[in-house]
């Protein structure tokens, strides 16, 4: 399995192969839709990873106290599929690791993955916006 650092942030060839269409219309429709939906999923994952206001809580306490590991795994599972459709390889790889960690209740790995999300998501978002602009989509 490739290390996330070596994976492309966004591989447009994957999107074109999945949709069977390389038109700017399809690319912008897919990427703008992905950006909208993925933002919602990432926000939920970031909420899971947020440290509690209480000082004695670790960053993953929200996961433990809310018994939300299964929900976290499901969020990652859905986001993984969405990433697979548009070629967001780096974020997809991270989702795979997060989903596995959540199902296995591996909190250190989950915490580490959620921290990585804080870097991978802005990188993905920046690339999405760049490609959308390159294809004539101005709402970035």
């Amino acid at each position, binding site marked *: 399995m490739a290390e996330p650092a070596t994976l492309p942030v966004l591989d447009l060839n994957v999107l074109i*192969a*999945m*949709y*069977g*269409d390389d038109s700017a219309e*399809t690319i912008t*429709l*897919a990427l703008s*839709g*992905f950006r*909208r*939906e993925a933002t919602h999923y990432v926000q939920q994952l970031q909420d899971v990873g947020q440290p509690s206001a209480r000082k004695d809580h670790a960053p993953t306490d929200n996961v433990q106290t809310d018994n939300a590991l299964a929900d976290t795994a*499901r969020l990652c*599972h*859905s986001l*993984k*599929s*969405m990433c*697979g*459709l548009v070629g967001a390889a780096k974020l997809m790889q991270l989702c795979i690791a997060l989903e596995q960690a959540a199902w296995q209740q591996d909190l250190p790995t989950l915490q580490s993955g959620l921290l990585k999300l804080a870097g991978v998501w802005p990188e993905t978002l920046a690339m999405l916006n760049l490609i959308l602009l390159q294809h004539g989509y101005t709402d970035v």
Partner: protein
Amino acid sequence: MCNILFIDDDAFILSAYQRMLRGSVYQACYLQQPAQLWQQVYLTSLTIVLADQQMPGITGTELLLQLQHNHPAIKRVLISGDLTLAIEQLAPELTLDAALAKPCSKVALLDCLQRLSGGLTATT
């Protein structure tokens, strides 16, 4: 009237299927709330239902099993991000006509629909 139904709680995935079928011969409908399946007026006109496995409230396999009991003539396709696990966990009485890995490409989707439609040409 649609004869193919996609069920997935994720709007983005449904919009992708819609885009993939654009210009094809298939008349598809899309449903985000699996529980609403039984209220759909087009239910009796359906020939194929494709359901995502992981949905809130009910799994794709549970929904397809209900469909098999209530409308056995409708062909059943499971779509899953973890197809191996989903197949392993299938209820023994559930019969699927096909299973697709999620995300599925336009090529895989059209191949599946063409096969289940008895060779109906995929594009107009």
